[in-house]
């Protein structure tokens, strides 16, 4: 019954709108019938035909009034009025196209920029991760006084998995690339992870075929099984249907394929030997727990868990910390750690969260300025149209109707701007995504789609109302009498309106200053980063990774001798300046960290231990990377496994552990009960390289000679410093490796300067956008100032003429006009800089080596704004000097 009624109602509304003509005709016919019946009755009562008809019509009252009332009853009046208003608005706008184009374009630009950036925010920050109930997935790290985020120890992991009560599944994973050979072509390096059983259950994804690893496969000797990715299955195995159960050769060892993951399983990202969220992972093998369960000192696996329903990550963290305390009482190596638990989503987007919000805020400010600008221009027009509005009011247009009329215009402008802005957004998002720094999370989730367009439309409508309401209400308050009077005289708008416009311009300038300060300090921060001494020389350096399979390179001797032979061959290549091998490259994320070594004659502070990043390097590694020797010597050919053990350390380590002493000649050891041969003597101190250019400072670090590596470092990076054109050495590198061992893959061939450059891409991205927004804001503010001053000058031409007649010079007039523009700007600048100081805290964490309250930037922005205002006032000032005294006098 209810639906029946609503159907009727809908049908009627539709009829009233779409078949208006027919409805009107029918109403007319209905009313005519009524009059005829009344007439007949009157005749029956004894009147003659003419009298009867007149009486009937009289009784009926005004037909047109009834028709109007019936029309009101149809409740579609407002729509019809809207159509009328819009038609009128189109007419008015097409009369002043320049005005319309300026407003529509500025709005389109800012709405487009907002939508584009909102698409990025939506994709990166708002969309859930592509795992079922992703909000229940949390990452688990260790934390100590020295380290905010540290990997987990595998034996600790087993205890956590057995004892915790918070996770449905708790798993771990660690990056360990493998080399696939024998699948036909050359050996290929696969991006691979060693995972515990339950890893995929944590992520909530099932293998497309086969199964996940079970607990038995974590036992030493049972681990030669592998789960392949869809990509590897297609590219390397031709999507063979009999893949399950097949034997494949990984690192020269036979593995049985037990599972195949579906396409699109996103890697959750890891921080140790990091592979970014969503990057390709080709294969997973079980993590096997070999070795001594009491070794709790080495940390290299990453914890991830799926929380039980209803358990918050804080509760889980408390649970884990309880277990950590138990472990610390049992194992010396577990002392000093607490648990740092973070939801996976936060872990992935955390690094860009703040920056995106700041950018969104900035682009929002631009839209606000565009709104103020539009309101300003509309106000100017409303002032110019005062006469027209007064006439309409005098003819009986109600206040509401006038406001609606003006709003229709601003809505039309906003919708045009919005439509154009949506188009811009489609292009803009592509541009934005192409500009996103490498390693930016979730870029493939960024799309312009219905939701974004809905938001754009909403923004456009809200914008239209926002910038239209003030002028509309202002205009509707026009007193018809005064309006007609003033309009007739062609004199200035009311004082209130002028004041309002001045306030709007001040607001525009203030907002623009706020953005300019933001752009300014980000620019300074960026320059600081670029000027920074990286600690190495990235130019003309080729790097490549080689992984020696454990099966063929079992001992440290095997490994060391391979690299020794390779480096010797590469050293003879023409064009090579220096060649080295090392376990790390600058600015590629830290990998290894050693805690708990002993320094001869020193004790660590209570609850702390000596720690440092550890690596191995060949003698020429430092020269190849360009890390300067500060003191002592680097390794040489004499440092072999038969000579006393030596170390090279960095400056920070020397200063931290041997303050005021000469570190060279000092000894450290990694054994609890060292023999004389277990001591490593520091032979040289090299310069510092920070983990990333934005790191506060470098961490302590040391290097073992490749020939003295205490445990096998099978994966090394070859560093070739060329005299010029390093990429030309790529083929020679490959062929030399092939000559030594044809089963080896040369992977990740990169230029060191490209690696270094990538580190600046995030700040460059932020700078590019905020600079763009600030420039736009400044332009809008200039338009605003120009508009206000030029209007004021045109209103005062008469007065200027009089002044000239009374002896004012052109210079006097110019000064008067300029003073007005500059005064408004100065007020705006003061407010804007005040706000910038108040909100400085927002930016601080994004800056390097400069404060968000940087006085130089503040002064520069102020000067820039005043300079712009001066320029924007100049044309009007020039016009003022053209005031003709004769015209003014004649008008009097």
């Amino acid at each position, binding site marked *: 019954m209810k639906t029946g009624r609503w159907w009727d109602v809908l049908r009627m509304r539709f009829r009233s709108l779409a078949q208006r003509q027919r409805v009107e005709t029918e109403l007319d016919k209905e009313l005519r019938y*009524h009059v005829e019946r009344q007439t007949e009755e009157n005749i029956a009562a004894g009147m003659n035909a003419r009298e009867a008809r007149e009486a009937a019509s009289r009784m009926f009252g005004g037909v047109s009034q*009834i028709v109007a009332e019936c029309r009101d*009853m149809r409740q579609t009046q407002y729509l019809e009025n809207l159509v009328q208003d819009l038609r009128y608005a189109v007419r008015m706008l097409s009369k002043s196209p320049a005005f319309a184009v300026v407003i529509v374009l500025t709005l389109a630009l800012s709405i487009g920029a907002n939508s584009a950036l909102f698409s990025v925010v939506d994709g990166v920050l708002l969309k859930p991760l592509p795992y079922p109930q992703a909000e229940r997935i949390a990452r688990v790290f260790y934390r100590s006084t020295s380290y905010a985020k540290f990997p987990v120890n595998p034996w600790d992991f087993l205890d956590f998995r057995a004892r915790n009560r918070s996770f449905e599944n708790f798993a771990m994973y660690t990056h360990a690339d493998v080399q696939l050979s024998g699948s036909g072509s050359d050996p290929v390096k696969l991006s691979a992870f060693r995972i515990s059983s339950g890893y995929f259950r944590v992520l909530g994804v099932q293998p497309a075929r086969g199964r996940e690893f079970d607990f038995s496969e974590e036992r030493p000797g049972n681990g030669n099984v592998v789960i392949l990715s869809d990509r590897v299955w297609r590219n390397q195995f031709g999507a063979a249907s009999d893949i399950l159960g097949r034997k494949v050769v990984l690192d020269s060892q036979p593995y049985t394929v037990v599972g195949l993951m579906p396409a699109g399983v996103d890697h959750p990202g890891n921080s140790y030997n990091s592979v970014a969220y969503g990057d390709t992972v080709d294969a997973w093998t079980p993590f096997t727990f070999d070795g001594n369960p009491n070794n709790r000192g080495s940390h290299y696996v990453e914890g991830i868990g799926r929380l039980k329903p209803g358990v918050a990550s804080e509760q889980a963290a408390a649970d884990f910390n309880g277990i950590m305390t138990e472990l610390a009482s049992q194992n010396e190596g577990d002392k000093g750690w607490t648990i740092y638990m973070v939801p996976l989503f936060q872990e992935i987007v955390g690094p860009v969260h703040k920056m995106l919000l700041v950018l969104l805020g900035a682009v929002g400010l631009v839209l606000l300025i565009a709104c103020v600008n539009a309101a300003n221009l509309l106000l100017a027009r409303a002032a110019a149209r005062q006469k027209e509005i007064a006439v309409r009011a005098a003819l009986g247009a109600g206040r509401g109707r006038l406001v609606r009329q003006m709003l229709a215009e601003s809505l039309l402008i906003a919708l045009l701007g919005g439509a154009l802005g949506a188009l811009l957004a489609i292009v803009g998002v592509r541009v934005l995504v192409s500009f996103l720094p490498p390693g930016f999370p979730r870029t493939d989730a960024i799309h312009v789609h219905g939701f974004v367009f809905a938001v754009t439309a909403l923004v456009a409508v809200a914008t239209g109302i926002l910038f239209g309401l003030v002028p509309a209400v202002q205009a509707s308050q026009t007193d018809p009498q005064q309006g007609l009077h003033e309009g007739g005289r062609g004199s200035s708008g009311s004082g209130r309106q002028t004041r309002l416009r001045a306030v709007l311009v001040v607001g525009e300038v203030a907002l623009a200053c706020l953005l300019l300060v933001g752009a300014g300090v980000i620019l300074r921060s960026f320059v600081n980063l670029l000027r920074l001494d990286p600690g190495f020389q990235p130019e003309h350096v080729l790097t490549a990774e080689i992984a020696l399979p454990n099966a063929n390179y079992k001992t440290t001797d095997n490994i060391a001798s391979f690299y020794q032979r390779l480096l010797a061959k590469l050293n003879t290549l023409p064009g090579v300046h220096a060649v080295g091998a090392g376990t790390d490259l600058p600015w590629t994320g830290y990998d290894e960290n050693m805690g708990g070594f002993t320094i001869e004659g020193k004790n660590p502070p209570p609850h702390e231990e000596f720690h440092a990043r550890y690596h191995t390097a060949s003698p020429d590694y430092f020269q190849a990377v360009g890390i300067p020797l500060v003191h002592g010597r680097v390794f040489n050919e004499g440092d072999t496994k038969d000579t006393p053990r030596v170390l090279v350390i960095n400056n920070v380590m020397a200063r931290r552990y041997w303050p005021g002493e000469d570190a060279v000649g000092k000894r450290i050891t990694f054994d609890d009960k060292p023999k004389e041969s277990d001591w490593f003597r520091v032979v040289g101190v090299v310069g510092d390289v920070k983990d990333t250019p934005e790191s506060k400072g470098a961490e302590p670090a040391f290097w073992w000679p490749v020939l003295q590596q205490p445990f096998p470092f099978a994966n090394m990076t070859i560093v070739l410093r060329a005299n010029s054109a390093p990429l030309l050495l790529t083929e020679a590198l490959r062929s030399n490796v092939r000559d030594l061992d044809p089963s080896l893959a040369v992977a990740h061939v990169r230029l060191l300067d490209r690696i270094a450059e990538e580190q600046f891409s995030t700040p460059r991205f932020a700078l590019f956008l905020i600079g763009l927004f600030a420039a736009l804001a400044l332009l809008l503010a200039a338009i605003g100032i120009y508009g206000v001053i030029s209007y004021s000058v045109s209103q005062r031409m008469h007065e200027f003429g009089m002044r000239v007649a009374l002896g004012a010079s052109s210079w006097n007039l110019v000064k008067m006009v300029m003073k007005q523009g500059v005064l408004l700007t100065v007020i705006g600048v003061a407010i804007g800089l005040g706000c910038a100081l108040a909100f400085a805290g927002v930016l601080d964490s994004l800056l390097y080596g400069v404060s968000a309250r940087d006085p130089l930037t503040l002064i520069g922005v102020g000067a820039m704004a005043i300079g712009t205002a001066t320029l924007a006032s100049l044309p009007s000032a020039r016009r003022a000097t053209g005031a003709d005294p004769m015209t003014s006098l004649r008008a009097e």
Partner: protein
Amino acid sequence: MSKPSDLIQGTLDLLILKTIALEPMHGWAIAKRIQQLSKEVLQVTQGALYPALHRLEQQGWVRGAWGESESGREAKFYTLTKAGRSQLDKELEQWRRLSSAVVLVINAPQEV
């Protein structure tokens, strides 16, 4: 009581709904019927009647359809819809409550 404004707001709707509850009627007949039944006390002007009919139609209480009138010409006949019938019940109930309340008040003994 010839001016529609003298009718309590909403009463005209009730009268119209009640009148066409028995059979479909056109506007003129509705006005006549109300006049007759009220012994010429209630005179519904056309200026009030047609807007009211339109509103009721827009709200889905009544439905208009063209048919041949008793005088042999085309007229618009209004029928009560299902929703209109329950609306009529609601309004009748409301009217009874209101009028009895008014009666209670005006019949209350005057204290001197």
